[in-house]
């Protein structure tokens, strides 16, 4: 599950601001570049960070499956529909098929573009959980605020993150509740049956969340949330030598990657 995993690693101790900057700058880099070597190096860096964090990437569980599925889907779609000049297969659908026969072609450019998008997606989707799993939600919020984000928005981000495990638990309870009413479509129903059965899961979930968010809002109001523009913090954060050093390393790394991107 994607939530904070307590630990003592270098990455855990790193100032949240450095991690947020790393997240932003690497994300920009990944979206700007069309270079496989650059993407590969960024991916390598992220994997080294996972190793350093002491958290196994397997902890991601179902998320990892989703990631692989999504990447394959993107590669497939781009391969089929992107097209290009260097044709590999044309047409995809043989001529003898009525109506749609002779349509579609697969080009080298399309395949490469698909792989690029897939790779980008994979790099980013491996980076985000790393930050979330090594940083306390409280520290993440503080990091955002100290970087200049208004507290309201930081609070929104952290509340959303905090709610993820709660929602997962709720889904489990609702599924159990409906199973107890002899409902089996979630497990062994066909696709159509599954689709038709979604209200039984989604309605209680959405209604429950709406009720809950109203409650949270009231609870915040009665504790005078936002009554003063400037707030103080019980737990503060400070940049130490190691934080500055890692920040410099990340900036230098990214500068190097941007240069490499232009050169290649």
């Amino acid at each position, binding site marked *: 599950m994607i939530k904070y995993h307590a630990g003592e690693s270098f990455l855990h101790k790193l100032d949240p601001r450095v991690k947020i900057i790393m997240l932003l700058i690497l994300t920009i880099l990944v979206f700007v570049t069309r270079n496989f070597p650059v993407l590969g190096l960024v991916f390598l860096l992220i994997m080294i960070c996972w190793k350093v964090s002491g958290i196994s990437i397997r902890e991601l569980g179902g998320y990892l499956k989703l990631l692989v599925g999504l990447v394959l889907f993107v590669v497939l779609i781009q391969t089929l529909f992107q097209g290009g000049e260097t044709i590999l297969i044309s047409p995809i659908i043989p001529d003898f098929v009525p109506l749609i026969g002779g349509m579609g072609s697969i080009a080298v450019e399309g395949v490469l573009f698909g792989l690029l998008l897939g790779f980008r997606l994979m790099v980013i989707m491996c980076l985000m959980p790393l930050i979330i799993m090594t940083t306390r939600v409280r520290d993440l919020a503080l990091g955002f605020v100290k970087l200049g984000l208004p507290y309201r928005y930081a609070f929104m981000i952290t509340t959303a993150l905090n709610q993820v495990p709660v929602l997962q638990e709720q889904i489990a309870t*609702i599924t159990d509740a409906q199973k107890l009413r002899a409902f089996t479509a979630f497990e062994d129903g066909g696709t159509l049956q599954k689709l038709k059965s979604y209200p039984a899961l989604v309605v209680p979930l959405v209604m429950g969340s709406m009720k809950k968010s109203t409650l949270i809002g009231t609870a915040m109001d009665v504790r005078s949330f936002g009554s003063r523009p400037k707030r103080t913090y019980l737990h503060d954060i400070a940049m130490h030598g190691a934080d500055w050093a890692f920040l410099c390393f990340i900036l230098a790394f990214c500068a190097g990657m941007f240069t490499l991107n232009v050169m290649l």
Partner: protein
Amino acid sequence: MREPVIQVDHLTYTYPNGFEALHDVSFTIEKNDFVAIIGQNGAGKSTLLKNLVGLHKPTQGNIIVDGVNTREISVARLSTKVGFVLQNPDRQLFADSVEEEIRFGPQNLKLDKAEIDARVEHAMEQTGLIRLRREFPMALSAGDRAKVVIASVIAMQPEIIILDEPTTGQDRRGCAQIMDIAKEFQRRGHTVIVVTHAMSLVAEYADRVIVMCKGRRILDGPTAEVFAQEEKLKESFVLPPQVTRLARAMSAVLPVDHTILSTQELSGCIAARVQANQM
């Protein structure tokens, strides 16, 4: 000897994270019993219920419900034998009307339409929901929402009905209505198991009480006998109903029976004593 409907045999349940929530629990529940399961939070009551309805399978030991081992039957199939009323109605209500909500279970059982209609009608009648049949379940009051959930279980016509803290957040009237529905269910020959923290309701409705503490069954017996064992109950932070404690305190000076469970019993006892003195 009545026919056993639930046999729990050396049940131990350990959660995937290694926490042992139930340790070597054994008991039998007979047909047409009204059993209350009590104990402090974390005593293992909810884990026990989840095992009884098949949501959890025993780590060790076996549970036989109506002749079938819960390991060998799906939750959906078992739901025709044991109905489970969840604590929080909001976790299952989703339909546009009360009637549709109650219809959901029988429909999943693939019954024919006439049978479903009859069951829905019967369930609404038993729970007093007829006048609310077209209402949107989630917009109802807490008491009525709880009744919709009970009706949706009754409509599946299980042999046994289990209620998990059905009176949480209910006012006195709501509590009484819910427990009366359960009592009526028992009168029709079914078995009722209820988990609750409301000792006065236990005293009023239950025939038998099982006390859980730290994953073990520490007391089990007829309600009056269980409530008489005050010392043992303290282990599980359970206090007998006020009237039982009063009777016990009075028994030092007046010969009243300290297995008393209701104000009527106590006042009857005192009246008899006073009359005897006057004669």
